[in-house]
C-alpha cells in the first residue's frame, strides 16, 4: 500500500497545526461558529446531536495494521471505545471533545492519516473497490489512480468551495463493488482497443432526495489526461452548479437541467482550452505511486488444499462462513476474507477498540498487515492463505467477528439515523437490529441468498436506501416515525433506483413487512439461484404489494 514520503508527511502535519490554530481561535471566540464551520468541516468535524463527530479518511478503504491500531487507540483514549465505519470507507468517532481534536489529528498524522475533506463542499475522500488488486475479475488495479486523485484533490485551491460536496469513486473490475454509478464522478479503469489504459467517466450519479444513475460523459480518457479532464468537469460544476438551493446544488442536478449532451459539450470546451501540461501529474509521479501497489510476495500454494476441505466437512459453522464470507482470489492458494461488522442484533459498522486491535494483529499474522474497509461497512483481509482460513476463522469467531452473513439479508447498510444525526427524521439503527434479530438463523439467511437491505434515517440517503434490493427510508409524520419501503434498487453494475412499494410502516412493523416480502419472493423464484433482485425485475412490484397490503 501507499506509504507517505516527506512531502506527504509535512503536508498532513502542517494541516494538523493549521487546524490546531483554528480550534484555538474558535475557543478564544475570535472565530464565530459560523466562520469556524466551513473550516472544521474541511477537517471532517461535524456538530452532531450530542457532541462533535470526527470523520477520518481511509483513502480508498485501505489501512495498515499500524493505522488500525492507532484508530483503536483513538477510540479508547478520546471516544467511548468504539468507532463506526461508514459507507464511504471512512471511520467516524462520535464522542471526541473539540479541544482534543488537534491532538487526535496529530496522532493520525503519526501514522500517515488525516481527516482532510471528509466533509464540507469539496472533493471528498476517493473511494474504490475493497478487493482492488486481488479480485479475480479485476482488469486493472484502480488504487494508484485513487491515490493520485487523493493527492490531487487535497486542499485543491480552485475546488474547495464548490456548490456542494463532491464524491469520486473508481473501480477496475467487471463487477462494480464501488457503486460508481451513484457518485458525482464514477471512473471505470479499462483498456481501449489499442490496449491503452484509461477511464470511462460517469458523471451526475447520486442518491439523496433526487436519486440519479450517473451518465457516461466520456467513453475513454487516457491516463495522462485524467487530472486535466477532472479539472474540466469540476470547473464546469464550480462555475455553473446551483448555489441558490442546497438540495439542487449537486452536479447531478446541473447535468440533469442542462442535459448530458450540453454538459458534455461544455466540459469538452473547457478541456480543450486547458494548459494540460500544467495540470498533469508530474512526470514519473504515477510510476512512483504504482510501485507501492505491487502485489505482496505470495507463496506458491495449492488451490483448495485438502486440509481446507477436511475442515469444512468437519465444521459446519466454518463451512457456512467460507461459503458466505470468503471470496475468490486471483492467486492460487489464497483467499479474500470478509469480516462482517454486522453481528446479529448489533450496530452495523461499529467496531470496538479491542476488535480493531485484534483485526490489526490478525492482518499481521495472516494478511501482509493490510486491512480494507468496504462501503458496505465491513472489513477485508485481502491476502489470506487458504490453508490458514480455519485458524483465522476461529480467532474471529472468538471475538464476535465471525458472523457468516456477507451479502446476506442481515448484512445491511445503515446510516446513524436519529440516534446521532441532527438531520434525521427517524431512527435507523434499531430498525436494522430488529431485522437482524428476525433473520438471525443462518440457514434461513442462506436459503434467502444474496440480498441487500439499505436503511436511511432521512431523505439524504446516507444509508443508500435507493440502491437497496430492499430500501428502507425513515420518515416522520406528526411526531411518529414511519418507514417507506422501496424495491429493486441496485448499487452494482446493474445500477438502478428502487421504487416505492406503498404506504409506510410503523417502526414495530418493518421487520414483519420484510419477512412477508421475503416469503413472497421464495414462492415466486424459479430456482434457488434467482436472487430477490432478479425476481423483482422479472415480476415487478405488484405481487409484493399484494402480499404486503392485501389485508389492509
Amino acid at each position, binding site marked *: 500500500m501507499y506509504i507517505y514520503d516527506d*512531502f506527504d508527511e509535512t503536508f498532513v502535519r502542517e494541516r494538523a497545526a493549521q487546524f490546531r490554530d483554528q480550534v484555538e481561535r474558535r475557543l478564544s471566540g475570535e472565530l464565530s461558529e459560523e466562520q469556524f464551520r466551513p473550516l472544521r468541516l474541511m477537517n471532517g468535524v461535524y456538530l452532531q446531536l450530542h457532541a462533535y463527530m470526527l470523520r477520518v479518511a481511509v483513502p480508498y478503504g485501505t489501512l495498515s495494521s499500524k493505522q488500525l491500531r492507532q484508530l483503536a487507540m483513538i477510540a479508547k483514549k478520546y471516544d467511548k471505545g468504539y468507532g463506526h465505519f461508514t459507507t464511504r470507507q471512512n471511520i467516524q468517532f462520535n464522542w471526541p471533545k473539540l479541544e482534543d481534536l488537534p491532538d487526535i489529528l496529530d496522532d493520525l498524522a503519526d501514522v500517515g492519516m488525516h481527516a482532510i475533506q471528509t466533509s464540507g463542499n469539496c472533493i471528498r475522500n476517493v473511494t474504490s473497490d475493497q478487493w482492488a488488486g486481488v479480485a479475480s475479475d479485476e482488469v486493472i488495479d484502480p488504487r494508484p489512480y485513487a491515490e493520485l486523485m487523493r493527492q490531487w484533490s487535497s486542499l485543491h485551491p480552485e475546488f474547495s*468551495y464548490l456548490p456542494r460536496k463532491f464524491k469520486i469513486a473508481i473501480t477496475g473490475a467487471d463487477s462494480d463493488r464501488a457503486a460508481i454509478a451513484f457518485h458525482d464522478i464514477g471512473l471505470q479503469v479499462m483498456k481501449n482497443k489499442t490496449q491503452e489504459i484509461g477511464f470511462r467517466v460517469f458523471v451526475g450519479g447520486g442518491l439523496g432526495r433526487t436519486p440519479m444513475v450517473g451518465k457516461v460523459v466520456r467513453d475513454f480518457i487516457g491516463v495522462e489526461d485524467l487530472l486535466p479532464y477532472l479539472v474540466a468537469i469540476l470547473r464546469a460544476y*464550480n462555475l455553473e452548479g446551483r448555489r441558490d438551493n442546497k438540495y439542487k446544488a449537486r452536479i447531478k442536478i446541473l447535468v440533469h437541467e442542462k442535459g448530458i449532451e450540453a454538459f458534455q459539450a461544455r466540459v469538452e470546451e473547457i478541456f480543450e482550452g486547458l494548459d494540460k501540461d500544467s495540470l498533469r501529474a508530474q512526470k514519473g509521479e504515477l510510476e512512483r505511486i504504482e510501485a507501492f501497489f505491487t502485489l505482496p510476495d505470495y507463496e506458491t500454494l495449492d488451490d483448495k488444499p485438502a486440509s481446507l476441505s477436511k475442515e469444512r466437512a468437519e465444521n459446519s459453522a466454518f463451512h457456512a462462513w467460507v461459503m458466505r464470507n470468503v471470496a475468490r482470489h486471483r492467486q492460487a492458494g489464497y483467499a479474500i476474507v470478509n469480516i462482517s461488522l454486522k453481528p446479529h442484533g448489533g450496530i452495523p459498522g461499529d467496531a470496538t477498540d479491542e476488535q480493531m486491535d485484534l483485526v490489526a494483529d490478525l492482518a499481521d499474522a495472516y494478511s501482509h498487515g493490510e486491512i480494507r474497509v468496504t462501503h458496505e461497512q465491513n472489513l477485508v483481509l485481502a491476502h489470506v492463505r487458504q490453508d490458514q482460513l480455519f485458524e483465522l476463522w476461529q480467532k474471529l469467531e472468538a471475538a464476535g467477528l465471525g458472523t457468516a452473513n456477507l451479502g446476506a439479508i442481515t448484512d445491511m447498510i445503515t446510516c446513524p439515523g436519529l440516534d446521532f444525526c441532527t438531520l434525521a427524521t427517524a431512527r435507523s439503527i434499531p430498525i436494522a437490529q430488529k431485522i437482524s434479530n428476525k433473520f438471525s438463523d443462518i440457514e434461513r439467511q442462506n436459503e434467502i441468498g444474496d440480498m441487500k437491505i439499505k436503511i436511511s434515517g432521512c431523505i439524504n440517503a446516507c444509508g443508500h436506501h435507493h440502491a437497496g434490493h430492499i430500501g428502507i427510508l425513515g420518515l416522520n409524520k406528526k411526531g411518529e416515525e414511519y418507514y417507506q419501503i422501496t424495491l429493486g434498487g441496485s448499487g452494482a453494475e446493474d445500477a438502478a433506483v428502487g421504487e416505492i412499494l406503498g404506504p409506510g410502516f410503523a417502526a414495530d412493523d418493518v421487520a414483519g413487512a420484510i419477512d412477508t416480502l421475503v416469503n413472497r419472493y421464495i414462492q415466486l423464484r424459479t430456482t434457488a439461484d434467482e436472487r430477490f433482485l432478479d425476481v423483482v425485475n422479472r415480476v415487478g412490484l405488484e405481487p409484493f404489494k399484494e402480499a404486503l397490503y392485501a389485508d389492509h
Partner: protein
Amino acid sequence: MPIIKDGNPVSDDPWVLLEEDGDVPSSGDIIVPLELAQEKRERLSNHAGRLGLLVPNDVDVEDYADLIGKAELVVLQLPAFTDGRAYSQARILRDVLGYEKELRVKGDALPDQAAYLKRCGFDSFDIEGDFNADIWQRASSHMSKSYQRNYRDKLAHRSL
C-alpha cells in the same frame, strides 16, 4: 474595507470604484462595473488613466476577453466566503486568457482562504470587516506544500 497586498494593508490604493449607473470620469484610475464598461467602451478607449473592471461572479470571463485585455486591474467577487466561483474565474483569467496584471478579490474573504486565493492567481484583497495582520499572516502561511501547481509556479504538481 482595507486593501491587503503581500499581507499588509495598502494606504494609498489609487483605484476608485464607479457606481453601476454612474458617470465615467475622463481621468484617474477607475474600477468600472463590467456592464457599464461594455456600454461605455468608446469613451473608455480614450480614458486618461488606468482601467479596472469589476466582474460579477456569474459571468463567463472568456466572453469579455478583449475588455479584460485592456484592463490593468480585474476585481472578482466573493459575495459569501462559501461561494467559490471566483476561484475558477481567476484560473481562467490567468491560465486560459493569459491575464497578467493585478487580480483582486473583493468580498467575504477569510484569512484562512488567502492562501488558496493566491494560489489561484489573486494578488490583492479588498476585504470586509477588520484586518488583523497577525492572524492574516498566521492563517495564510500554514501550508508550505501543495499537490497542485499554483499560478506562476515553474514547478509542477507536488514538487514545491
